[in-house]
């Protein structure tokens, strides 16, 4: 998960609510004068204005009042949740809560369905958000003791071998269609810091989370474009072909290299590619691959690289 996501800053007024979530409880103020339940927490009743309120635990059961599936992340940092299942839940006590649904497939979501709370601990510090799932679903809690699991690409069937001098077969590889996605890796602050040391590019937008949160345009640090570009080597793009019959293969550079969108610290990235052009000349066979790296869930690439590979 991107570490740049906005997090709640509890106030004196709301502190019991957030503390309750950390203890896997949902607690809300209730008006002692008129019985009205109050969300979000206030010091007064928003029906009768009495200030005689009492915090009470509730079950958290409710129904889905409305929802949408956001096909474009509402903020780049939410790309890891894409498509976001944003929802309004009406608790049995009558209050409505803006939240997200988890552990439900799109087709399972119906307005009016019964829901139960998920106390979703989102970081090592124990900060907990209130999400909801189906009444009959179980959502496993996140774990922070082990490194984030990385999705592996299944071991591929043997790839189709194409000889480096087979002009017809090589030209047939050129396509507008991209491959499936590669494996995923996490670009965390530690990796960004390492790259800053290595490259000497220690601009604060990459290395100073505090300043980047306050002054930066992205609400936190972002990875160097150059870092994301070189991480390509760790992303295995599942091309269906394999070039054989050459003695030497060199990276000849890039025809086009763009960084159209940022990679916030903590994002997962993956890649896909296509063969854009094939040229067979005296020096050897030249393949131009369009290799695009995306933050997982984001339609807009973070890196577009038209990489030229020369087979000799």
């Amino acid at each position, binding site marked *: 998960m991107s570490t740049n*996501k*906005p*997090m*709640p*800053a*509890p*106030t004196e007024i*709301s502190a019991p609510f957030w503390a309750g979530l950390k203890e896997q409880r949902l607690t809300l103020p209730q008006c002692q004068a008129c019985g009205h339940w109050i969300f*979000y927490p206030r010091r007064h009743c928003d029906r009768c204005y009495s200030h005689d309120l009492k915090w009470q635990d509730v079950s958290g059961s409710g129904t889905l*009042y*409305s*929802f*949408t*599936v*956001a*096909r*474009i*992340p*509402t*903020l780049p940092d*939410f790309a890891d*949740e894409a498509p*976001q299942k*944003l*929802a*309004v839940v009406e608790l049995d006590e009558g209050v*409505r*809560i*803006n*939240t*997200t649904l988890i552990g439900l497939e799109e087709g399972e979501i119906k*307005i*009016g369905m019964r829901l139960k709370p998920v106390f979703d601990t989102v970081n090592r510090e124990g900060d907990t*958000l209130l*999400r909801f799932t189906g009444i009959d679903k179980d959502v496993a809690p996140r774990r922070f003791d082990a490194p984030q699991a990385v999705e592996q690409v299944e071991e591929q069937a043997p790839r189709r071998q194409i000889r480096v001098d087979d002009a017809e077969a090589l030209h047939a590889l050129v396509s507008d269609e991209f491959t499936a996605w590669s494996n995923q890796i996490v670009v965390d602050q530690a990796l960004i810091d390492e790259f800053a040391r290595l490259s000497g590019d220690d601009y604060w937008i990459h290395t100073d989370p505090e300043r980047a949160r306050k*002054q*930066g*345009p*992205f*609400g936190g640090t972002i990875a160097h474009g150059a870092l994301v570009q070189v991480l390509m080597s760790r992303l295995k793009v599942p091309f269906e072909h394999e070039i054989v019959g050459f003695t030497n293969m060199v990276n000849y550079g890039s025809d086009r290299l763009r960084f159209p969108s940022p990679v916030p610290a903590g994002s997962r990235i993956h890649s896909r590619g296509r063969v854009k052009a094939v040229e067979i000349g005296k020096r050897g066979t030249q393949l131009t691959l369009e290799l695009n790296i995306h933050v997982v869930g984001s339609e807009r690439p973070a890196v577009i690289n038209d990489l030229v590979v020369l087979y000799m």
Partner: protein
Amino acid sequence: MGLKGNAAIVGAAQYKPEKYATAPRMFHLEQVADLAARALADAGLQASDLDGLVINGPQFHEASVFVPAMAAEYLGMKLNFAEVVDLGGCTSVAMVWRAAAAIELGLCQAVLCVLPARMAPFGPDEDPSWMARAMRFGGHSTAFGAPEAEFDLPYGHMGQNTGYAMIAQRYAAQYGYDAAAMAKIAVDQRFNAQFNPEAMFYGQPLTVEQVLASKMVADPLHVLEIVMPVAGGAALIVASKEVAARARNRGAVVTGFGEHLEFKSPSYADDMTRTPVGPASDRAFAMAGLKPADMHAAQIYDCYTITTLLTLEDAGFAPKGEGMRFVRENDLTWRGNFPMNTHGGQLSFGQAGSAGGMSQVIEAFHQIAGRAGDRQLARCDNVYVSGTGGVMSEQGALILQGA
């Protein structure tokens, strides 16, 4: 209660909507002066006639406080009435009735209502990334203690798209949904824009199929059902009967208005599908002594197709739950039986910030004054105008009638 019909819109000016990247950069004060001069020329009035100012407080580039005084000084105005309005897309409608009310109370005789919405030049030390920072959370506050910062943003609830989408989904669950009818709203308005050379999408007709094939942004809203933000700006002049008599246009008299708001996030509405424009419109019609059926045109705030649909129902043009049938069965173009958003609506004209809503007021004025060019309605004496700010959170309505 209400207005006696002694104040009218007599002049207007509006920048042609442009993409932000290529639009001229002007200080907001400079835009205010420029728009004021153009609106005065349009009205055939003098600078000395103006003695009232209604201006935006939020998003004013050169000041965040004392905006009217700074603008009065910059323009050289002597004001008997000064007001800022902070009602998002409802601001224009709200400006007009405030100006009319001030005139009828005898505070002033001619009021400039103005909304600069081109970007200002960057200062030498100004960090261009402030725009990106400001845009990051849409209209959501990130201030410590702001309920939306604490209870919405951490879940990804931000900007406008998803709020409107959730209203549409709730509507669909309660009343059913016809995606083609929703697309027809955008298509009929695009037809109108083909008769408005000022519109962003002039020369680009649209079909229902194109709308339905466009990208889904947040279910059920396609990208072509969502307004395009543009650079622009607009002004209009509201004047007393006496001043209006000297103006060169037929005035659009403000005979009714209403305003209603209860929440910022529609999640807290009693019923998401019954919007504040209902009570606002009821009041406006009652004040004018007219009914929806008496209107010759409706200029309905259209940041999204769903906004227009719900306004058609809640203002009383269509029964609740039958808005989509109404859209299917009526021709909403300027040539049709229910002329709506005859300038193309903001969906096809472009939305220049809170000045976007002024395009609807100005179109109503132009139709009443007989100055709507190729899209002029044969008869246009009574026009309904609505304004919507936030996520259907701040809404207002005006009834304008030909003098």
